[in-house]
């Protein structure tokens, strides 16, 4: 269950970011632990390679800020690792390391490969 934070981004509590959930009701914690998918592990590896212990292209505070800028709809829709990927995409395009068209082309190529070769 996602935290019900939408009503807190209204004028009811002006200035409260949708990510700033401290003290809000978020429902019970689901104790079921799932196994991380390969792409989820890869996303963490990528983040580490680009981060403060790696190439220093991105830093933790930037990944937080870009999560806070993606909009409440996307923030509530995406899972933890998806938010991480979206945040990295935003930073890397902001810095001109990648551009969105390049990412779209690569995604289309991978989608085609999976469709045709099953991997």
């Amino acid at each position, binding site marked *: 269950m996602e935290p019900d934070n939408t009503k807190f981004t209204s004028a009811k*509590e002006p200035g*409260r*970011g949708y990510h700033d959930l401290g003290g809000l009701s978020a429902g019970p914690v689901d104790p079921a632990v799932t196994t991380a998918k390969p792409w989820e592990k890869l996303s963490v590896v990528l983040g580490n390679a680009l981060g403060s212990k790696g190439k220093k292209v991105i830093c933790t505070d930037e990944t937080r800020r870009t999560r806070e800028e993606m909009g409440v709809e996307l923030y509530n829709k995406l899972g933890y690792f998806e938010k991480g990927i979206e945040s990295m995409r935003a930073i890397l395009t902001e810095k001109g390391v990648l551009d969105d068209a390049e990412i779209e082309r690569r995604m289309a190529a991978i989608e085609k490969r999976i469709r045709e070769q099953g991997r």
Partner: protein
Amino acid sequence: MTGPFSPGDKVRVARTHPPGHRRTPYYVRGKTGTIERVCGEFPNPEELAYGFDGLPRKRLYRVRFRQKEVWPNYTGADGDTVDVDIYEHWLRAV
């Protein structure tokens, strides 16, 4: 390393909601607490978040709040507290 606040000093967290990446949680803004310790000086995360170097460093404090001060409907013990790390520019002398 000396700053305006020492352990034991009472401080109030600024009740302000500026746009941008801010490291002070909403639930302690405007609340009054006590300096528990000086954590040190660190590059400012509110600047690092936008690709700047975060310098000059900002002094970080651990501030202790009474749970009953933070949560008006708190039903736990009177002595319960919560510690939050807060940068100096968010704190005001009481």
